[in-house]
């Protein structure tokens, strides 16, 4: 710890600039934030399309889904939705984990778990859509 509350001390021999260069937004810090905005903008029209599509799939049989996925448009839009959704999800969950989990091992471990699971779920969705549409 940085000394007692009454008597604080600094024992890291590194300048504030040196610390800033290795941490935070000094290099590619804005990329994470920016990708989260880009995916959220993409998800505005994609989500509206998805909801309209899902209302038409209420009570649908598998044949209905297959004939819906026969055209290229639903396949392309669904894959775009899946990519944007899971990218947005892992970016958002990473920030939530970074904010609340202070233990290093637990934090890094849970971020890796979230990213790995997001990637696997996204791949499962994409492969399924391609299998239906191709």
């Amino acid at each position: 710890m940085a000394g007692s509350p009454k008597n604080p001390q600094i024992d890291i021999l590194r300048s504030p600039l040196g610390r800033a260069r290795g941490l935070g937004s000094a290099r590619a810090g804005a990329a994470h934030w920016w990708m989260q905005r880009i995916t959220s903008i993409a998800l505005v029209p994609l989500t509206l399309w998805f909801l309209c599509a899902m209302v038409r799939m209420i009570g649908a049989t598998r044949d209905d889904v297959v004939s819906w996925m026969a055209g290229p448009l639903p396949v392309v839009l669904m894959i775009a939705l899946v990519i944007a959704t899971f990218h947005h999800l892992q970016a958002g969950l990473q920030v939530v984990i970074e904010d609340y989990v202070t233990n290093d091992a637990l934090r890094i471990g849970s971020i890796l778990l979230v990213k790995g699971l997001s990637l696997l779920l996204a791949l499962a969705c994409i492969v399924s859509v391609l299998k239906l549409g191709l």
Partner: protein
Amino acid sequence: MRDVRDALMVARNTDGKLIRRPLSPHLQVYRWPVSMALSIAHRVTGVGLGVGTMLLTWWLVAAAVSDEAFSGVQWFLATPIGLLVLLGWTVALFFHFFAGLRHLVWDAGHGFEQPWYDRSAWAVVIATGVATLLLWITGLAVW
């Protein structure tokens, strides 16, 4: 000091003396303005929608695998528990959608001034309610 982040808790005052930076008070100290409730709800619905992506994955994978698997999902979604999950999912989606639009307006540098800060918060709440209601009326009519 073992953790680099601890260094950020220590600073010098104007006399050059090392001090511990004061911590801000925590959640229970504040009253609950609508914006704070929305900010927390935005995170909660975001995490909830993350869980909801498993439903989307299940639905798509089942459709790709077999007739039985797909009719299994469709059967579950029509049960009372399935409908409750779908209701929670649509509320969370619409809320995160509209609150997200509010965030994008902020990112563009607008909407921080009162009364628009609070008005946009209530607009998000109302839009979520109206959109959810419209979707479910349409959905139940189609079903």
